[in-house]
């Protein structure tokens, strides 16, 4: 039990230490030191608990500590509401709903705490293999992102002189964010979990608003507002759990154990989860969040924030298993998956592509969580891990590329393979990691397809979800491959080689690349070490049916062979490059220079071509409008189905 205390406390202490650093040099050193400490401690705790095989352990605190913490969290809740209200001082016109939501949320919580005695929670903390894996993701990936942020932010302020330098607060917020994430993952007391949950909302608001521009402020308010809608739903769930006819408990394990009786509060918490993980109809806040510096995006998209949303959905999965409300939830995920994959095709800017792909993959995780069979939960857990690794790599990679070439436009990344081979190779592995065999994300998709087809719940449900996955895969393949095509294209004018990214950035990118590439090896490890113990623990509690199937080892073997080929061939090519005669590309025989041709009126013209973005075929706006409408209907269906 005490092993998780340092995880929550350490980033909290780090946050204060960084905030109070006297000068820039000390601060940067402290950020580095604390990040590395965090990574090491997380690994130690993770491996330690993995070896201890702690399955679904619940922990009680001494009475005095519990009373003290209860008081502290009540105070923290009030303080948080105060801070959020204070932050609302710069709202404009239509954003009046944000302070209103804060007041409503605080009011509901106050009602829940005073009108009836709130239920006592015997075990305020819980540890299970899934929570341990989440902690590993938060600590290791989060720590790496913080490490990457030090050189990145130095460059950032060099490039953007107008932005006020508030880096002490910036790093402090990142560590506070990580602390709150650990709290969300390990808390079993729902009110405490809610306080941690709202701290992540606060941190994300502050970090998105960091550039201080009008656009950043507006987008930060949107993120705050949408997450507060989820927060209000969460508060209503707490009220229902205090005064409603259903289960009278504030303990997450009791809530999940109540099964279908707890459907309404679970659906309400699921709304909070959907808002946090940027699913339709809430998804626009995550797109707006890309105005923030790249480490923030990396953090929001990979190890924190959106992962908190799907984490709670996976936890609640046994409640939704086999219900109409669960089907509605799965369809919200499916709708999000298909529509955002299509919308990503339209994007030319790297960050929206990554953002839409995050939302799409989270949709897939929501589908798996809502289905709630043991196999689907494995798929969800594996997707969470592999997505966190590859997405962190891609965001940080975009950050490094942007500082090299001064642009985030995909078309401008043409020829990166020739300009910065090592960076391009890492980035290509990141992209392949998102959608191609033999990497982890694809294996997880395989698992989810199998899980959908082998469940026997509502007739046709599995086939429907599997078909949705099939349709979403097409555009996914298109927009990633198009981007890869740009990276490998021979550049028209070979730009001068710029200075390489700073050493720390390369180190972080390198470790994330290694983790992404090793996914074949990680796959069985994660499955045996975390996913299977988690679901078998749930099965032992009678919450999900016992699983019958496993990933055949033969498939993992084949994937490993493919991975071997994928690395061996470039290696062989590098060691013994072939010697063919290089020539100019075919330009109908009208070549003038390397890649220019004789155009009309005898002028020399550069032969340029761009990728397809299909903006005339379908438009992002229409897709998203359709999606919001559909998701609202499905959301009402979910609430209606849980009554």
């Amino acid at each position: 039990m005490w092993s998780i205390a340092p995880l929550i406390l350490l980033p909290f202490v780090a946050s204060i230490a960084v905030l109070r650093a006297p000068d820039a040099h000390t601060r940067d050193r402290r950020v580095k030191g604390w990040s590395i400490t965090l990574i090491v401690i997380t690994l130690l705790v993770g491996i330690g608990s993995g070896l201890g095989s702690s399955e679904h352990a619940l922990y009680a605190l001494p009475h005095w500590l519990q009373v003290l913490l209860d008081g502290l969290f009540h105070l923290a809740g009030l303080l948080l509401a105060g801070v959020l209200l204070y932050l609302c001082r710069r709202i404009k016109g239509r954003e009046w709903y944000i302070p209103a939501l804060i007041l409503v949320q605080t009011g509901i919580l106050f009602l829940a705490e005073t009108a009836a005695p709130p239920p006592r929670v015997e075990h305020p903390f819980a540890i299970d293999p899934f929570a341990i894996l989440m902690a590993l993701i938060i600590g290791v990936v989060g720590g790496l992102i913080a490490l990457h942020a030090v050189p990145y932010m130095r460059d950032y302020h060099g490039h953007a002189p107008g932005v006020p330098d508030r880096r002490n607060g910036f790093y402090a917020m990142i560590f506070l964010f990580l602390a709150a994430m650990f709290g969300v993952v390990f808390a079993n007391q729902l009110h405490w979990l809610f306080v941690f949950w709202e701290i992540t909302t606060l941190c994300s608001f502050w970090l998105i608003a960091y550039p201080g521009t009008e656009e950043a402020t507006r987008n930060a308010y949107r993120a705050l507002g949408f997450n507060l809608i989820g927060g209000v739903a969460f508060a209503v769930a707490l009220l229902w759990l205090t005064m409603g006819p259903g289960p009278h408990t504030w303990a997450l394990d009791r809530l999940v154990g109540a099964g279908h009786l707890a459907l309404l509060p679970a659906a309400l918490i699921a709304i909070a989860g959907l808002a946090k993980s940027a699913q339709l109809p809430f998804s626009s806040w995550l797109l707006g969040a890309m105005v923030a510096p790249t480490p923030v995006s990396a953090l929001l998209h990979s190890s924190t924030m959106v992962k908190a949303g799907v984490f709670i959905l996976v936890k609640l999965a046994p409640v939704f298993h086999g219900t109409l409300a669960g089907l509605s939830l799965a369809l919200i995920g499916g709708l999000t998956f298909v529509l955002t994959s299509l919308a990503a095709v339209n994007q030319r800017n790297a960050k929206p592509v990554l953002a839409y792909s995050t939302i799409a993959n989270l949709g897939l995780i929501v589908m798996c969580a809502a289905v709630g069979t043991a196999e689907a939960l494995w798929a969800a857990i594996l997707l969470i891990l592999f997505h966190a690794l590859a997405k962190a790599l891609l965001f940080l990679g975009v950050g490094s590329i942007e500082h090299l070439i001064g642009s985030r436009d995909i078309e401008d990344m043409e020829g990166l393979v020739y300009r910065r081979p090592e960076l391009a190779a890492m980035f290509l592995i990141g992209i392949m990691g998102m959608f191609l065999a033999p990497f982890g994300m694809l294996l997880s998709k395989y698992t989810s397809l199998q899980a959908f087809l082998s469940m026997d719940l509502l007739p046709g449900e599995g086939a429907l979800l599997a078909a949705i996955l099939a349709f979403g895969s097409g555009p996914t393949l298109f927009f990633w491959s198009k981007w890869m095509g740009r990276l490998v294209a021979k550049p028209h004018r070979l730009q001068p080689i710029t200075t390489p990214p700073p050493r720390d950035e390369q180190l972080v990118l390198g470790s994330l690349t290694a983790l992404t590439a090793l996914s074949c090896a990680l796959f069985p490890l994660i499955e045996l070490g975390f996913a299977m113990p988690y679901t078998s623990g749930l099965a032992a509690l009678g919450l999900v049916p016992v699983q019958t199937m496993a990933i055949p080892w033969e498939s993992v073997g084949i994937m490993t062979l493919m991975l071997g080929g994928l690395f061996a061939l470039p290696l062989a090519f590098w060691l013994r490059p072939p010697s063919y005669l290089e020539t100019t590309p075919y330009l109908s025989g009208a070549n003038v220079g390397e890649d220019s041709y004789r155009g009309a009126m005898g002028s020399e013209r550069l032969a340029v071509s761009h990728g397809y973005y299909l903006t005339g075929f379908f438009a992002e706006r229409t897709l998203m409008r359709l999606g919001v409408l559909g998701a609202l209907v499905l959301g009402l269906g979910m609430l209606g189905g849980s009554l």
Partner: protein
Amino acid sequence: MNAWLAALAFLLFGPLFGALLAGIDRRLTARMQARQGPPLLQPIYDVLKLLEKDTLVVTLLQGLYLWLFLFFMIGAGLILFTGGDLLLSLFALTVSGIFLCLAADATNSPYSHLGASRELMLMMAYEPMLLITALGFYLTNHSFRVSEILEANAWQPFQLFGILLGFLFVLTIKLRKSPFDLSTSHHGHQELVKGLTTDFSGHHLALVEVGHWYENIILLAWIYLFFAPWGPWLALPIALILFFLEVLVDNTHARLTWSNTLKASWWVALGFGTTNLFFLAWWLR
């Protein structure tokens, strides 16, 4: 043991039979156009000749991507012919296709780029239907393993009828036949020159050809799988007939635009594929 033999046979004789299929294809096409047509082994002569020619490249890296294309193509075939996992085989086939596009993208010729973009568009068009096909096999056999699909019940071709129709539709795209030959333009439409393969020559072009021979065999095997429970004496001729029906389609249709191709194949995947999947799930419950 059997699996190893099958793998070896695919590796050695796969391209040979693939070349024969290509040869028959050209002969049939010629006859449909009232021409004599080349000898049956012409594709092999072509490749042998290509191997003797100089290889010119725009960038040396295009060779690497082409080798990766061939590697994953053969990988896909090996998984299939050793009775392995159909879905994994499909994934390998996808990777292979993407490396072909990357090879074309690596050159900086607008013709190649256009070909690669269109090829990606076609992949987006056929991918859902191919996945649904694999899913259909899973529903009838409760397994993605080819060795178990081979022992399916005799009703399989009827159970998967809608999916078979959908598969045949996207097969036209996969074989780059008209009306879907957007990315390579086999019939000498000039706007694309040779699309995807414009900037490959010599060894590289030979490599692409051999890759396509392997692909022919893999796709033929997919059709065979539908009818596999009827035994090879019935299933193989049916598969061949259906395969060569594509030649007829090729010669009787004008090329579609990419937007129509995309729309048509997604509607087919939705109308035939998903509906079939849905009924199957209902029925086999």
